[in-house]
């Protein structure tokens, strides 16, 4: 019988694949010899085609069930998670992330706009009535830096150093705290982006109130020197994570021509690398905020670092991942 012949000719291959797949699923692809590794994809494709044929031409249900199980398990063995080399990962973060952000201009703009509106609102309200300050800045964060403090107290707060051991601890706790908030800002985008928007807005409020307080005492320049070196990566990371969150929110609310599930899947994978890069940015911000800022008390050095940070951050976002024009021309030539 044709189908009996079909099975007899392939049984040995299937048995070999079965033993390979057993080992791979238990311990990973390392357990296979080189020869087996070369054979695996061929056997896998063979089983899939046998399954496809068997489904249509044979009435031996036991055989079909066996092939279904074998095919499913070989799929899991062959399509293991793509382990990219470390170099690829770095390249992804440096080039792919800005490229994706540039496709998410709408969300980026919204994220910046919401934060900006928060800053402006807080600034206006606090300059009209300093009592608003306490609404926008949590007392734990402010410490004794509020409208009731004297200008001298505010000024010295910008230049206090810290003990050596305490600095690293301070940096790490800042990193953990801020990264938690940034990750939350992104994840909350799932709720149609509303909590993300609120988070960005209140962040902006806090910033605006703080800026206004120092500006009203004529301390804006030193304050920015104190804030910007770590603020650029930190606030930048929060804005980027907020943009990702808003992007996800838009996928929930307006999936376009896809179903919500498909749109979310695409949006999620698009944004996750960005969030990963923000973790790196926040680690950097933590180091600057925890160590550099306490050690370096000179406004000019601080401003220099702030300018440097602003420069590479902006350049990374706008130029990262763009191919040089000559390279593009080479691609067109056959």
């Amino acid at each position, binding site marked *: 019988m044709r189908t009996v012949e079909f099975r007899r000719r392939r049984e040995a291959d299937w048995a070999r694949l079965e033993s390979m797949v057993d080992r791979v699923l238990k311990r990973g692809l390392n357990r296979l010899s080189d020869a087996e590794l070369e054979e695996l994809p061929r056997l896998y494709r063979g089983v899939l085609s046998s399954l496809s044929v068997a*489904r249509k031409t044979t*009435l031996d249900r*036991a055989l079909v069930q*066996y092939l279904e199980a*074998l*095919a499913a398990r070989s799929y899991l063995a062959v399509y293991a998670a793509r382990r990219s080399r470390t170099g690829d990962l770095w390249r992804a973060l440096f080039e792919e992330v800005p490229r994706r952000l540039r496709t998410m201009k709408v969300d980026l703009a919204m994220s910046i706009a919401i934060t900006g509106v928060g800053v402006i609102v807080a600034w206006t309200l606090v300059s009209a009535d300093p009592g608003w300050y306490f609404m926008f800045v949590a007392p734990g964060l402010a410490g004794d830096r509020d409208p009731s403090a004297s200008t001298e107290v505010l000024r010295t707060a910008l230049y206090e150093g810290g003990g050596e*051991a305490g600095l690293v601890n301070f940096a790490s706790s800042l990193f953990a705290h801020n990264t938690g908030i940034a990750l939350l800002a992104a994840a909350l985008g799932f709720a149609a982006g509303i*909590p993300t928007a609120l988070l960005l807005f209140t962040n902006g409020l806090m910033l605006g109130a703080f800026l206004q307080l120092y500006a009203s005492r004529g301390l804006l320049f030193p304050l920015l020197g104190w804030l910007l070196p770590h603020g650029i990566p930190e606030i930048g990371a929060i804005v980027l994570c907020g943009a990702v969150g808003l992007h996800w929110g838009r996928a929930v609310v307006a999936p376009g021509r896809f179903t919500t599930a498909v749109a979310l899947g695409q949006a999620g994978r698009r944004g996750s690398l960005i969030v990963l890069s923000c973790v790196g940015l926040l680690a950097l911000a933590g180091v600057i905020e925890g160590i550099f800022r306490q050690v370096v008390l000179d406004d000019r050095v601080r401003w220099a670092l702030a300018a440097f940070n602003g420069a590479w951050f902006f350049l990374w976002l706008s130029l990262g991942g763009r191919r040089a024009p000559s390279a593009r021309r080479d691609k067109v030539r056959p």
Partner: protein
Amino acid sequence: MTAKASPKKSAGVDIVPPEAVRLRFPLAPVLSRMVAFFVDCGIIVILMVLVLMLAFALRALTAVWVVLFFVLQHFYFTFFEWTWNGTTPGKRALGLRVISLDGGALSLEAVVARNLMRDVEVFGPGVALLAPEVLLGSDASWLTAAGGLWTIVIALLPLTTAKHQRAGDLLGGTVVISDPVRIPLADEVTARTQPELTLHFSREALSIYGEEELEALVEFMRQIDAGQTTFIDQRHIATTIAKKIGYAGTEPHEAPIRFLRSFYRAQRSALEEGLLYGERKASKFAAKRRGSAGRKG
């Protein structure tokens, strides 16, 4: 697929790999996933305790264990799902695995995306209900209620989506399956048929029964091969079949096994030839159907 579709045991999900052959995987039950999650949390706690003890023993800076705690809390799942092919220790203990819905390999982006939401799903409800000022910056009770309600909706997603996807699965385009069970290959039933002893059946005789009856016959023949049937049973089955198809001969009564083996072989050949022309006969009650050969892959 044979015409009589196998009864749906547990819910399954169809994946089409790049080779374009549809594969079916059993969906992991939500309860198993919760248990696996608790096991993983337990492991995280144990690791944190170990880190703490090590840090104190070595008088390391607070920074060291703060950062390690952060990494453990947020990247434990990502690390394992990325390096262990979609499983974590907890999931492995329960035989679960994460796979990508688009049929390709699990990508880092999918793994990161699906684990980002866990903070919201697990800690979100607690934060939204107990300490809303962390999120909102001011006291607003209706916002708290809305936030709490929303996090409950998110937490219940695995029960409401068709593929038991939680919010993280939706974001990563992934689904959690139970590892497929290994099925051994049963012996070929026709192997014991000796060609020279086969009987001849007319075409009309072979057009009575359908695939269902063939399946039942295979079961019976497996029992014969295992020695679980009596001569009376074999003769009974053989004579019933002979009567139905109008077979005139003494073999069903005297050598039922030989009759059954021949009949099975002949009937299966006949039905399989029909398959090649796209004709299917589900059972003796069904009329012969011309179905599309490409039906159900």
